[in-house]
């Protein structure tokens, strides 16, 4: 019985690998470049978190203690023009965030907000015990988008208040 159980595992794995659909050309290129053991992560770094065009997401994994910071720069058309990250954690967490930065560059905020951790996990062939690393990356981009939107909303309120105040002053001085 135990013999059967043991032998069925590799069989199942082979079957699922064969059943996996062919990946689009771009992701093949990326999957060659990225691996959970990747020692050369891309887009590591920081941006000015006070910049009005930059959104910052800082997230942590309470169970393992990994910390991930992801920053996006958004251009006037609402497109993510640059992405930087710093991850203090295991190789899978670093690879997940590195891959994510390449993935979301050029996306609109809506598109980037829809990126699922399963896409990251699949691309990097993360084992089940490392799925939470890809979740952390998904949470990081969501958090960065949220931060960016909150900042813009705040900025809009402030500028419109300033404009209103200025025009009120103008009106008063004319009167």
């Amino acid at each position, binding site marked *: 019985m135990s013999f059967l159980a043991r032998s069925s595992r590799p069989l199942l794995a082979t079957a699922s690998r064969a059943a996996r659909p062919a990946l689009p050309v771009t992701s093949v290129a990326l999957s060659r470049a990225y691996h959970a053991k990747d020692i050369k992560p891309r887009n590591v770094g920081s941006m000015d978190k006070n910049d009005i065009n930059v959104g910052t997401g*800082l997230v942590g*994994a309470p169970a*393992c*203690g990994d*910390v991930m910071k992801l920053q996006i720069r958004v251009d006037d058309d609402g497109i993510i023009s640059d992405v930087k990250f710093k991850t*203090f954690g295991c190789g899978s967490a670093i690879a997940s965030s590195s891959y994510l930065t390449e993935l979301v560059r050029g996306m609109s905020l809506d598109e980037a907000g829809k990126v699922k951790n399963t896409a990251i996990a699949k691309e990097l062939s993360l084992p089940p015990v490392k799925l939470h690393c890809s*979740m952390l990356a998904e949470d990081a981009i969501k958090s960065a988008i949220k931060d960016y939107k909150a900042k813009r909303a705040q900025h809009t309120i402030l500028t419109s208040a300033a404009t209103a105040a200025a025009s009120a002053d103008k009106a008063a001085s004319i009167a």
Partner: protein
Amino acid sequence: MTAQIQGRLLQQSRWAAFYNRKFFSLFAGLYKAESTHYSLFPKTLKDGPPPTGRFAIDTRELRKEFLNLQSKNHPDLARNETEREQSEELSADINRAYSTLASTLHRANYLLELHNLSLAEDAGRTMPQDPELLTDVYDVLERIEDCVADGEAEEIQTLVDQKILDAETKVEEVFNSNDLDNAQNAVIVLRYWVNIRESLKEWEPGQVFRMIH
């Protein structure tokens, strides 16, 4: 002859105790008092886990009792294969219990487990995170990354040690007072800082800093 029978009875009762624990561990939530890592060390930890016992434990006494238990229960003392297997399993259990209880973080995580409050791997999603803690942790990590001087490294080490002491005090407090609502958060704080401490052990100023856990 009598000694042999006594020995055998002792072996049997150990075996029974072992099976009891296995059995009860299936109902960990209901029967935790009967079957914890604590009950393997009746001398040092006779009061059991908090809130009956204290969270802080005498690790020197625990180590003594651990070595004593392991020498009494050494698989090489077994007279046949069955006994040997039993004693190997018990010995593995004692090892596991000791290494769990000897570390503050592992003990704290184990207590969470006893209360069915283990931190799931996606706990970052299911419970609110403390942004101040994350910023605090991140700032220290960045300081380590930028650090090239020994003096600065010592400062960081002192800071991290202090953070761990504070976190341990908090963990102790919540478990001793059975304040289960705050137990998970207290353990999370400890986890972040302990991770940094362990990673610092493998690092020198100017080197690339890698997290180890």
